[in-house]
Every structure is written in C-alpha cells, then in structure tokens.
C-alpha cells in the first residue's frame, strides 16, 4: 500500500526485536531489493487512477493521507519513543489552516500546504516545549490534554472554524491556475506530497539525527553522558512529526468536497493513528503506513457493510495484532528474515525479556538451549546476556550474581 522508502529499517527492526546480530553489510546488500519493491509500489500507486473507479481512488487518497499521519506519529512513537495521544491536533491544525488559506486567500498549489506545515510546526514547537519534558504516562496525558484543548478551540471558535459544522466550501486546489477537478488529479497531488513526506521522515530516521533519536528512546541517561541534550532532540522530533502531520492535514483539506470538522483533530483520530502504528509495527515507518491502510479499509470501506460495526472489527484487529504479532505487520517480515537464520559469523544472543515472555514456537531460538542462565525476571537483559557469553571470573563490586560455580577451576589457588 504505502510507498516503502525505508528498506533497511526492516533490518534494524529485525535486529532490535530478535536481538540477533545483523551486520549492516548484509543490510546494504538487501537494499536494492527493498528499493525495487518501493519503486514498484510507487509505480503501482501512481497508476491507480488510470484503472480504478473514482470512489476507490479517492478512498486510496484518504489512505495515503492517513498513512502519512501514522508514519509521522511513528517518528514520535517508534523512533523517538514518545507515544502521543494528541497527534491528530497537528493534523487538524494543518487541515484547518490549508482549508482557510484556500478559502480566503489562495488555492494555488503548494501555498495552502506550506501554510499548513508551518502553522502545524509552530503549534508543535509551542506544545512540544511543554510536553517533551515529561515522560511515560505524563507525556500521554499531556498530549491528550493538548489534543482536547485544540479540539475545544476548533469547536468554540466558530467564526473561523465553522464550529461543530466544520469548515466546508473549501475550493479545489489549483495547479498552474487550473483547479484540479478530477479525482485522479487530486489523487496524484496527494500522492506526490505524501511521498515527499514519507521521504523526509525516512531520510531523517536514517540520518545521524535519527540515530540520536533512537538513542534517546533506548537510553536517555546514556545520551546525556555522551553530550546530547535529549530535550532539544525530542523537541525537534516532536516538531518535525507535527509538521508532517500538518502536511497530511493540508492534503486532507485539499481533497474534493473536503470538510474539516473538529472530530478530525480529536481523540478518535489520534487513537486511530496510534492504532495504525501499533498494528503496523512501531519504528518501522512502512509498517504504520500499511496499518493506516488497514484502519481506513476497515472503518471507511467495509464499515458501511458492517452496519457501522467497523470500530468493533478494528478493536478485534488491534487485540489480535497486539497479542499475536510481536512487532505489528512489520514484525512479520522480520520474522521471515529471522527464519533465514542469523549470519554464521555472528554469535547468537540470548533471548531478551520480551521474547522470554512471548516465545515464538516457529523460530526456535538457538540460544535458549545454550544460555547458561535461565532468564530471571529482575535482571536487565543486557547484564543477563553478558553472563551468557562471558564466563570470566566475577569482579567484585557488581551487583550481578557471581557465577563462579560455572568455572570452579578458576577459583582454585
């Protein structure tokens, strides 16, 4: 479904979830294949309006827009480790901004979108400046509150936003002075900017900056000791995610017969985006894009056939995804990569805690048998692994359980 601009993130996820050593050498070798897949998907997506009926085409455009929102959220959730419950706020701000600009100023092609991105980014800086100081549940609650606040604003500022009725009468986007009147053209417009947005997020996630964001996600104190300021990086990540969400919102407002309502920036949209990230697999970027397609498919395409029970089906999909897919849909590919087996030169790593709790019967972990220590609950995985590999004598002073028992010879004087 999505343009897959993140070929090697598959390998990163594989390494992260399986704990196996994936030398980047082999990752580089796989890039051409993934690049080809991405290109094929892109061509397929570009060809859609030529073969598919207008309704389905516009539905696909909605999927792309929602996928862009989900991927921008994944930059927060999966890469930076900041699960936000208010991400739709920036989507909505982008949508209202683009709609208002198109309605009252100009609908000339990129201007409403640029306005959407800029305003959403400003909103993200201002709110993120508060939010990223907090951690965990507090971050969740703060982003939820920010989202609700902005939704309230959209509802009550009816002179500008149209209140509960929403913002309607947004003119069609104009490219080179001509309004895009056909669904296919609008679709291409959406596709172009969605791919642009995906590419930006992918490039950022692959950049040194992205590596720093992952480092902050995994171990913030460590990053501080390396001289990184987690606050600045998190704020930058939050702002970028907000800006891309704003771009998605701007695209949302440039669809045909666009209607932007307060619901678009409320909790439901945020939760659906988070659901798309969870179903698709956080941190992989392309997974959430597919997750978003699944969400839109179930809610909007099959929803009417299900007598409005689409949300129920979504809930079931979510539960199934959480319980049976360790890392969402993206995890399916990494499992497949794992079955090929880790490279021979890489020593297998003992199972991490999460694997210990959800063992995968289809992929027997070679280290399960060789690991000398059975996983004990309280120990962090890394120290546990250290013992699995290193049988050296125990230095004093660590609070690891000394394991001289394994090499009694060393203790004889």
């Amino acid at each position, binding site marked *: 479904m999505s343009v897959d601009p993140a070929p090697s993130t598959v390998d*990163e996820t594989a*390494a*992260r979830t399986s*704990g*196996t*050593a994936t*030398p*980047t*050498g082999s990752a580089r070798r796989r890039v051409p294949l993934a690049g080809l897949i991405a290109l094929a998907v892109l061509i397929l997506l570009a060809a859609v309006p030529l073969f598919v009926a207008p309704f389905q085409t516009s539905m696909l455009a909605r999927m792309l827009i929602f996928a862009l929102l989900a991927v921008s959220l994944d930059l927060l959730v999966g890469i930076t480790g900041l699960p936000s419950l208010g991400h739709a706020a920036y989507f909505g701000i982008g949508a209202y901004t683009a709609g208002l600009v198109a309605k009252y100023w100009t609908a000339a092609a990129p201007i409403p979108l640029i306005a959407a991105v800029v305003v959403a980014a400003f909103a993200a800086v201002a709110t993120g400046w508060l939010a990223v100081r907090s951690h965990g549940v507090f971050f969740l609650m703060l982003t939820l509150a920010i989202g609700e606040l902005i939704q309230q604003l959209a509802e009550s500022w009816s002179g500008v936003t149209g209140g509960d009725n929403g913002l309607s009468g947004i003119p069609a986007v104009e490219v080179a002075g001509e309004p895009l009147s056909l669904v296919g053209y609008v679709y291409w417009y959406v596709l172009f900017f969605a791919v642009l947005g995906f590419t930006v997020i992918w*490039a*950022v996630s*692959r*950049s*040194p*900056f*992205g*590596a*720093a964001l*992952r*480092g902050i996600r*995994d*171990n913030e*104190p*460590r990053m*501080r*000791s*390396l*001289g*990184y300021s987690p606050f600045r990086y998190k704020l930058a990540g939050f702002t970028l995610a907000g800006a891309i969400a704003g771009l998605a919102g701007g695209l949302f407002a440039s669809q045909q017969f666009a209607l932007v309502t307060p619901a678009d920036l409320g909790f439901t949209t945020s939760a659906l985006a988070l659901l798309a990230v969870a179903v698709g697999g956080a941190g992989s970027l392309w997974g959430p894009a597919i997750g978003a397609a699944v969400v839109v498919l179930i809610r909007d395409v099959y929803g009417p056939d299900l007598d409005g029970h689409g949300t129920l089906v979504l809930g079931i999909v979510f539960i199934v995804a959480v319980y049976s897919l360790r890392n969402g849909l993206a995890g399916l590919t990494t499992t497949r990569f794992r079955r090929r087996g880790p490279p021979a*030169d*890489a*020593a297998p*790593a003992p199972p*991490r805690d999460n694997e210990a709790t959800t063992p995968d019967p289809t992929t027997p972990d070679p280290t399960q048998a060789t690991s000398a220590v059975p996983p004990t609950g309280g120990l962090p*995985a*890394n*120290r546990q*692994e*250290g*013992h699995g*590999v*290193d049988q*050296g*004598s*125990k*230095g*004093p*002073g*660590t*609070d*690891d*359980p*000394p394991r*001289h*028992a394994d090499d*009694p010879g*060393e*203790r*004889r*004087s």
Partner: protein
Amino acid sequence: MSALLELRGVGRSFGALKAVDGVDLDVESGARHALIGPNGAGKSTLFRLISGEMAVTAGTVTLSGDEVTKLSQVRRARRGLAQTMQHSSLFLTQTAAQNVALAAQRHRGSARWLLPRRQRDVDSRVTELLAAVGLLERGEVAVSALSHGERRQLEIAVALACEPRLLLMDEPAAGMSPAESGRLTELVLALPREITVVIVEHDLDVVFALAERVTVLHLGQVLLTGSPDEVRESVAVQEAYLGSSNRGELFGPTSRPDPSEGHPVSNLLAEGALHSDEADGGTRS
C-alpha cells in the same frame, strides 16, 4: 602541570546521610588517578557529582579552571568530560560501530546532523577508535552478540569518541577475567597523556598497575591521597577496609595470586549469591 579537575568541599547528602562529605580532590592534567574505598564509601556518588549526573549539595567542582558546579551533565560532557559506566549501557541492538558513531557524530561534524550524508570523517574516526580498543573486526556485530569483556572495551571506544580531556571510568574491570583486565590495563596505559583518567576500581591489581595517585574514600570522606605505595602501606587504609570485612591481610607484600583472593567485597557478595559449596570453598581457600 595544572589541576584539570578540582573538587573543593564537595558534598552530597541524602536526608541525614552524607554520602559524600567535604571531599577535596585535585587531579593533575594528564594524571592517572584512582579512587578506591570500601563499599559504601561514596565513590560512585562522587563520580556522579563530578559527571554532573547528580547535583552537589555542597562545595564546588572546577574543570580546567572553570567552575562547572552548576552545569548540567550535558554541558560538562561538551566540555570534554566522558565516562564509562559501571554497568554497560551500550545500545544493544546496534552494532559496535554504530555505538561509537553515535558518540563520534556528536563531537565531530555536528553541522550535518539532519541529512544522511556519507560521513567519512565520523566513519574514519569510528574505525580508528575500534582499532584502538581492539574491536576492529567486531565493528559490524550487534552489541548483544559481544562478550562482556568486548563490551567493556567498546565502552572505552565510545567514551574516547567524545574526545575527552577527562575520562571517568567507573569500575571498568568489573566482571572481567584476569586476562581481560590485563588487556584493559594495557589499553588505559596506552591512552595519550592529553586524556586525564580518573578511575574507580575494586580490582586493586588494576588500580596499582594504572594509577600514579590513589585517593582512598571512607564513609564519604577522603582518608588519604597518595602514591600507590603510600596507600599500600597506610595503616588507616587497611583499617578502613578491614572494618568493612572479615578478611585478613589486604595489601600483602605479594600481590594477589589469583582472582578468588580478591578484595573483601567479592567474598561478601559471593557468600550471599553463590552455591553454598562453592562459596565455602572460595572463602576457605
């Protein structure tokens, strides 16, 4: 030589407990300085106060002449203070090279932090550092697949990537075999003299092999600062150690014949955690 690190009356209290109490410490530029002391002496707390991870409740910390008492850990890190952690805190899912690169990119080429350009400068620095700690061949291996000893070596490469003037090493030899701690000692001895090293270590063989100056902490206070020989001969130091354990001679004329004859704390830990037969054998030997 001037003092690179100066502590004056540094203290940290947790309620009524004074974990670190009025510590004065001068570390000369280029020195190899060790902090030792029985468990609970405040060594790790003092380290945190130096690195800025924890704020002092009394006293001042001065780094190359500038007072850094109020500066955050991040700021101090940017002024050339790097540390290796007591518990390996590397990024397990990433390769050894990526771990070093993450530190190197912060201190080199900060201008290209956004775009995934080919970073030759950072890459060559990473190769150089991996080679320096003897992990060149393991660069593309995920940290989770490295042995404990290799991880400690990698910790040092990561710390060196921060281009430190002052390197704080918190128990770098912890959990290492004698051969591994021997290699570690060589590695630290080979560091250029532009890097000042302050080391907290329980393995006294490592301490006496590395350090030119040794500061003994006891109950949060400096008991003695002196050369390794002075420390070895000090009655006060022996008493401080003996008071916290039930072992006999600590700094014998001969150095420890084998690792099991280590430092008293090793046996305290061992008794609690080992299988009883092994623990008995260990303490009796």
